[in-house]
């Protein structure tokens, strides 16, 4: 038997705090894809809040921590296009004038993947053993889509989920208005973008909206519940890992 591929999971700070189920869904999918999964404990956040607020020094310091914590694994997999994009695209840029660190950042970038893209493009996964008797729609989160080219991979795996119907979302590629600190610095604009997104979601008639980024999902779920919509919100990994029966949707009451 060949040695297992060693994958380190970059959990992301939002999954860590809000939705550990997404992390466990990722672990299950990676193990199903034949990977040995590790979760380096020296990780906290990828540094985007600092980076996008103009605090480059702290962004660099956090990037160094991530680069060190994730050294030595075959791959680093992230259940978020935004955080994966941070590592893959922006870490090398952060060290533009430090050649040694830049080389390390590029080495890490080359091994880093968004979860669903990794399953399909690297591990060659074509189907998952999950079922979900629901009609769903899918929002393409901006960073995953435009920085990493995540578009067909989630649709491909969703097509293999037994009982699931995908209703395409009009304007699926338009931002939901999350944008990290943008959401709290400009709530009115962010809210308008969320309202437009929620209206598009409602127009599909789907019972559940999926995406690959918890930031967008908190925004969408928060707006859906504020307007009294019954549409459920989930991370795509939860559906692919077959967890919809055991884990309530984002923002729904818990029974345990």
């Amino acid at each position: 038997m060949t040695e297992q591929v060693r994958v380190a999971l970059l959990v992301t700070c939002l999954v860590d705090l809000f939705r550990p189920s997404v992390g466990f869904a990722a672990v299950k999918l990676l193990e199903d894809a034949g990977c040995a999964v590790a979760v380096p404990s020296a990780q906290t956040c990828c540094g985007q809040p600092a980076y996008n607020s103009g605090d480059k020094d702290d962004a660099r310091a956090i990037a160094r921590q991530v680069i060190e914590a994730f050294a030595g694994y075959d791959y680093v997999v992230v259940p978020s296009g935004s955080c994966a994009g941070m590592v893959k695209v922006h870490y090398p840029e952060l060290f533009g004038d430090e050649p040694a660190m830049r080389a390390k950042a590029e080495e890490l970038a080359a091994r880093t993947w968004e979860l669903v893209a990794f399953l399909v493009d690297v591990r060659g996964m074509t189907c998952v053993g999950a079922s979900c008797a629901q009609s769903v729609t899918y929002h393409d989160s901006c960073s995953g889509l435009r920085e990493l080219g995540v578009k067909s991979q989630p649709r491909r795996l969703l097509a293999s989920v037994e009982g699931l119907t995908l209703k395409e979302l009009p304007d699926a590629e338009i931002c939901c208005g999350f944008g990290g600190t943008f959401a709290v610095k400009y709530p009115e604009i962010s809210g308008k973008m969320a309202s437009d997104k929620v209206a598009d979601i409602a127009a599909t008639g789907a019972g559940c909206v999926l995406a690959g980024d918890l930031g967008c999902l908190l925004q969408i779920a928060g707006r859906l519940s504020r307007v009294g919509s019954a549409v459920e919100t989930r991370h795509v990994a939860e559906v692919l890992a077959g967890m919809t029966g055991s884990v309530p949707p984002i923002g729904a009451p818990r029974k345990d």
Partner: protein
Amino acid sequence: MDPTSRAFIENAHAGLANPVLRRALGIAGSGFPARRAEAIARLPEFEALREEGRAIKDHTIAHLDYYLELYEKNVTAAGGMVHWARDAAEARAAVLDICRSVDAKIVTKGKSMVAEEIALNDHLEKNGIVPVETDLGEYIIQLRHEPPSHIIAPAIHLMKEQVEEAFRAAHTELDPARVIAEAPQLCAEARAILRPQFLAADVGITGANFLVAETGSSIIVTNEGNGDLTQTLPKVHIVVASLEKIVPTLEDASTLLRLLARSATGQEFSSYTTMSTGPRRPGDLDGPEQYHVVLVDNGRSAMIGGEFQEMLRCLRCAACLNHCPVYTAIGGHAYGWVYPGPMGAVLTPALIGVGEAGHLPNASSFCGRCESVCPVKIPLPKMMRHWRERQFAERRIAPSYRAGLKYWAWVAQRPALYHALVEIKARLLGWLGKTRGRFRAMPLAGGWTQIRDMPAPEGRSFHALWAERQRAKR
């Protein structure tokens, strides 16, 4: 115009609450991107063309001094004259001097963003010269005494009802009982009013989409033909253009023209593409007797060699505005100065200062759609981030926000402490939010809960659960 960018949040609120703007942007918001997408689908080499366009602009800006001097030499050889203006005041003075030298009373104007930037109309009016905007959109907003809200469709924030209102208020010599409810009637009226102005004008002022170094030509694109009448009928033609409009050759200009109209309106080519080289020559049937170019720097040369240099590639196509979910939500006036949308969020701070325009590069979710449609691949989000870096370094952000960020970053660099704090937070918020699954309000999170609920955490942190799972395995 005096910037109102400091009041961005209030301006945006007004835009969001304006039903006319909502309707107008609703139409434009989907129309432009759909037409662009169709035009690009018909041109398989569009991506290669974007690369070529970027390379042309980068090369030109890297050798700007050379091409500007070559351009001046060729303008002069064709019988024209170049006037160098370091800033807006010098540019206004140069235009006024030329107008005065021919004792101009009426000046017709083609659409020009740099003329807006240097507030040319106000200056001419103050000095007794009547500027007449001849682009329909510009004419409408001139009547309404307001700035453009879009760089290629200046009156995009209006519906035909507002145009009718403006025409009835301005054209008092016409029959008040006339019917001008529909667009063709409004166009016909504008044409009838403007036609004598074209003939009466002493000077015609246009902008330029490109200045061609090898020939000394200026190129404008229009869909109304007003630019041609503006620059060929009066005795004097003044081109007002900023430095970065220069391209080396006609071949380069045609490459960029192929990108421009498709990116802007989804046309393969604008209805009119007009080249001017010097004044009328002997034997020419028409054309001006004098041809002047006022070359405006106004902060551009200071962008060269720095982190905003790539912004000088901008063709002013407005694709970034049309595809921006923030612009299409709030409209162009919210940005508070001449250039709105993503390109304005980068350019405006460079021209009027980041102290004045600090909101603009922050009011972006970094969705990246602007960069993905830019015909010359300007990394707009990256440059907005550069402005944020500068604001952070210069302590131009709220002290409470800065302190919060610094505290968070300090904790984020201490994983054991961080994990302990996250676990406490996850347990506490998970417990508080268990029955409803969400929070309608939350201390210190008013910015979030103002417009959406906060989904409750599941109750444990991932790292705590993972550590338990690993211990159980052993």
